[in-house]
């Protein structure tokens, strides 16, 4: 039986790698994928806690996170494609058009 704290440690490591990816990378697509990585790390923590507490509620929450992630990816990719049409470039550093 693997202790749940190992899962939490792995989740923390994955989340930290995701944060590093968001800060380091300049391609908005890769930044998005790093965000997905962080969401998955949080999901893993949810399932681990649910397993530890013997309740399936954590899994239901993961279900909602999945739905939100799907909506977020669809809208985010649409925004990226729209900006690419406008700018012909793909770098987060000149995305200040989103500011108003």
């Amino acid at each position, binding site marked *: 039986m693997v202790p749940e704290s190992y899962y939490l*440690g792995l989740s923390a490591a994955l989340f*930290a790698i995701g944060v590093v990816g968001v800060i380091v990378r300049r391609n908005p697509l890769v930044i998005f994928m790093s965000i997905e990585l962080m969401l*998955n790390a949080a999901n893993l923590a949810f*399932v681990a806690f649910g*397993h530890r507490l013997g309740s399936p509620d954590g899994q239901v929450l993961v279900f*909602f996170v999945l739905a939100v992630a799907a909506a977020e990816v669809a809208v985010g990719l649409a925004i990226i494609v729209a900006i690419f049409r406008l700018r012909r470039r*793909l770098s987060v550093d000149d995305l200040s058009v989103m500011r108003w």
Partner: protein
Amino acid sequence: MALAAFALIALIALGSALGLVVKRNPIHGALFLVVNLGSIAALYLTLGAEFLAAVQVIVYAGAIMVLFIFAIMVLIPGKDETGPDPRRALRLWALPVGGVLFLQVVVLLVLFGGKPPAGEPGASGSVETVGRLLFTDYLFPFELTSVLLLAAMVGVLLLARRRA
């Protein structure tokens, strides 16, 4: 045995996550992310969440990653991230920030990790358990999810429409 399996899957997950961050080509990054999502599905299985493991593969690896790869193919971002970095000083913060986040959880684990479980460990992750909970206790958020997906769909249609 279970520990060895966990260690193997965790190594695959960590390696593919690092590959996503390190590799310059976004297609390689996307494929690494698919490996990562698959390994997390395997971890769900080891935690007894069979339904979630299946949903993870279908929704993430099947739907979301196809969308990502489609976007990468459409945008063809081959030449990005090759020139000099205009905000180098900002990106040097990445490792300290990530390290501090990681250390926080490690400290918490060391402080509180040895406590005995509060409840009966090993919740069932069958379709019946999760589905029953979704349609009783979590019925309202579940319905809100459909509204959210509808709003996202309409928003994407609006964004993707070419200006006449």
